[in-house]
């Protein structure tokens, strides 16, 4: 096996809809400085940097080179990885493999996005094939709306089931000082919010945020000296099979199933509800927080609404999901999935403040992007 690797520090910006006070490089710098402060390290301790975002949102080519003023990668190795919404998961995996390879000891992953500078949905639409699909692919919301419509018809789930997920995530965000949207809401509020793309309404939907996140990974020999309680990486996994949107199996979600099967096998998880103490899931719409739980093998097909109504995924439930407020409360796209990893790490490190789940030994973070590209990371308080 490779070098044992742990997360030893995380930093997030104050996420909001428009960070007019900073440019992109300054936004990145804010997250980097906070991560360094969290780990009590200085820039000279960082051996390599990985960075990611989505090019068309800020229209900056060669972001790895451009970012140097903010990332601190001057005269250091830096590379850019990007896979759309899942970029943050790709970043975490890339930093992990930097260290696990034995070539680097301390590596910083940085995800960022300044969505306020972009026409987000127009930019997302260009991910579709230019000839066959682009003309009618209307941004990110369509596929997920279709997915939940099918699920409701097949299993009798309701719009209220999804609304309960929205209420959970939004209200969890009240305990997270970094969250973009922090407003107490009820199921009734969600149901009354404007319809965007049936059955997804405004409060079922993620915002678009300006923000950045930095996560520091370290090798076994360095991790113990840097952090009192590092979050050890036990496994990462990814699955992706896109060619055309119409080719995807919307009912069985093979890429999500493959990703969780891989991560559970690699991390030795047999029953996710019992073996995982907290999950930070990339749920861009509340509806995903219903459908995807089935395919993550948390329950049988069609059973997620029952568990949601029982409160299994609430802060006081058996498997708390998104104590941070999740993607529904904060969504700087290139950073979003890295924030999931950062929040999972904070839970394992016991540094999650008011949103801390009691005694977390195992945490899992996921990423979602492009056409059902899923990634996952499992962190534990004990070494692998």
């Amino acid at each position: 096996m490779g070098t044992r690797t742990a997360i030893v520090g995380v930093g997030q910006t104050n996420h909001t809809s428009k960070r007019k006070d900073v440019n992109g490089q300054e936004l990145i710098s804010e997250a980097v400085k906070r991560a360094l402060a969290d780990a009590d390290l200085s820039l000279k301790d960082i051996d390599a940097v990985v960075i990611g975002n989505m090019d068309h949102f800020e229209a900056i080519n060669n972001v790895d080179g451009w970012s140097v003023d903010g990332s601190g990668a001057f005269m250091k190795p830096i590379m850019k990885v990007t896979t759309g919404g899942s970029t943050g998961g790709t970043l975490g995996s890339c930093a992990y493999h930097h260290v696990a390879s034995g070539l680097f000891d301390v590596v910083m992953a940085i995800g960022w996005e300044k969505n306020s500078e972009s026409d987000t949905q127009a930019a997302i639409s260009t991910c579709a094939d230019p000839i066959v699909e682009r003309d009618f692919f209307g941004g990110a919301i369509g596929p997920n709306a279709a997915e939940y419509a099918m699920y409701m018809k097949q299993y009798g789930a309701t719009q209220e089931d999804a609304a309960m997920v929205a209420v959970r995530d939004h209200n969890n965000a009240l305990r997270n000082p970094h969250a973009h949207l922090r407003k107490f809401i009820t199921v009734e509020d969600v149901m009354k919010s404007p319809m965007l793309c049936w059955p997804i309404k405004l409060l079922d939907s993620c915002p678009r945020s300006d923000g950045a996140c930095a996560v520091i990974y370290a090798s076994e020999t360095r991790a113990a000296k840097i952090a009192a309680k590092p979050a050890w990486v036990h496994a990462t996994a990814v699955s992706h099979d896109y060619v055309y949107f119409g080719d995807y199996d919307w009912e069985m979600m093979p890429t999500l199933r493959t990703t969780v099967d891989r991560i559970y096998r690699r991390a030795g998880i047999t029953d996710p509800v019992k073996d995982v103490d907290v999950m930070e899931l990339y749920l861009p719409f509340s509806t995903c927080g219903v459908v995807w739980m089935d395919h993550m093998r948390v329950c049988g097909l069609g059973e997620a609404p029952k568990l949601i109504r029982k409160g299994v995924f609430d802060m006081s439930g058996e498997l708390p999901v998104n104590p941070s407020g999740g993607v529904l409360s904060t969504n700087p796209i290139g950073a979003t999935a890295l924030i999931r990893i950062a929040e999972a790490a904070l839970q394992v490190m016991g540094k999650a403040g008011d949103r801390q789940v009691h005694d977390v030994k195992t945490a899992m973070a996921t990423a979602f992007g492009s056409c059902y590209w899923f990634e996952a990371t499992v962190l534990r308080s004990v070494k692998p």
Partner: protein
Amino acid sequence: MDRVAIVGVGQTKYERGKTKNFAELVYEVTRKALDDAGMGLSDIDNVVTTTNDFYDGRTIACMAVAEAAGSYGRDATNVEGDGTLSAFYGLMRTLSGVYGTTMVTTHCKLSEGSPRKLFNQAFDPVYERSLGMDAISSCALQARAYMHRFGVTEEQCARVSVKNHGNARNNPYAHVSLDITVDDVMKSPMLAEPIKRLDVSPISDGACAIILATEERAKKAAKKPVWVRGVGHCADAYRLGERDLSVSPALEAAAGRAYRMAGITDPSREINVAEVYDAFSYMELMWYEGLGFCGQGEGGKLIDSGATQMGGRLPVNPSGGVLSAHSVQVAGLARIAEAALQLRGEAEKRQVPGAKVSLAHGAGGICAQTHCVWVLSN
């Protein structure tokens, strides 16, 4: 570092205006690399693709090539940058103990885009873009800074063009192969002083793939393994005004890391053949210096000496280099593929006899802000 081998390589012919789409280009080279390695797709544990949303003209451009690269049913990831960096990430994934083999692909089809406008997007949006900066105008500044400081002449730069375009005649994959003289280069139209048309690489469509394997898995490959001995990459400052453009400290740092890992102390004697990122003729002279093939400011003298020609002490770019085929992000991975072919003795008419240690170099960003260096041996 554990031993990792390059066990398969595949390249398209580089040319302008290919009719294949991105996926078809990538499929061509993954198929070739698998055949070269004597492997099937089931032997590939994970995949690293390379895309650029600007050059590809679509967001999340990795979606377009995932299946053609063999991503279906296996772990996959995507780098944006020169192919040497994708290979670097592939190397790290192979070393991590999680994956025994890694497919690395890269493609570019810039004939469908507007290269000057797309590269302009790399400049600062407020202060520099509106000046119309692009690759040629910015590199002209670097060429002039380098030539002025060290007394390197336009004729010495032209010699690189003559050498590499001539070498390209031996490479069936090359886009532009020419039988030209220094005089031809000097008389070619001025684009941005001191850079003339024949000092510049073409815009080529193409793709390249390599397969990396652990020592254990390399045993199953059909061809003799080519071992990765040392790697390093490094970034200089972003703004041109903050850099001394006449030297390349990031290349020195990247090469230093690769040489330390490979145990190389005298690169000019220990390396038998090099493939470097010569997007412009002056660059090859600067990279001689950054790679330690000669002292600072001596790049012009080194080309004059003939040491870097075919038959010289250290042939550089037997393939014709980037000057003869420039598929942007493909260019660095093509250097690795060519450096590997040299060590297998399979470089045909461009073979450097008896090559045992080879070097591949990739670069990215404005005036080669970032560099990546690979040292290989057989």
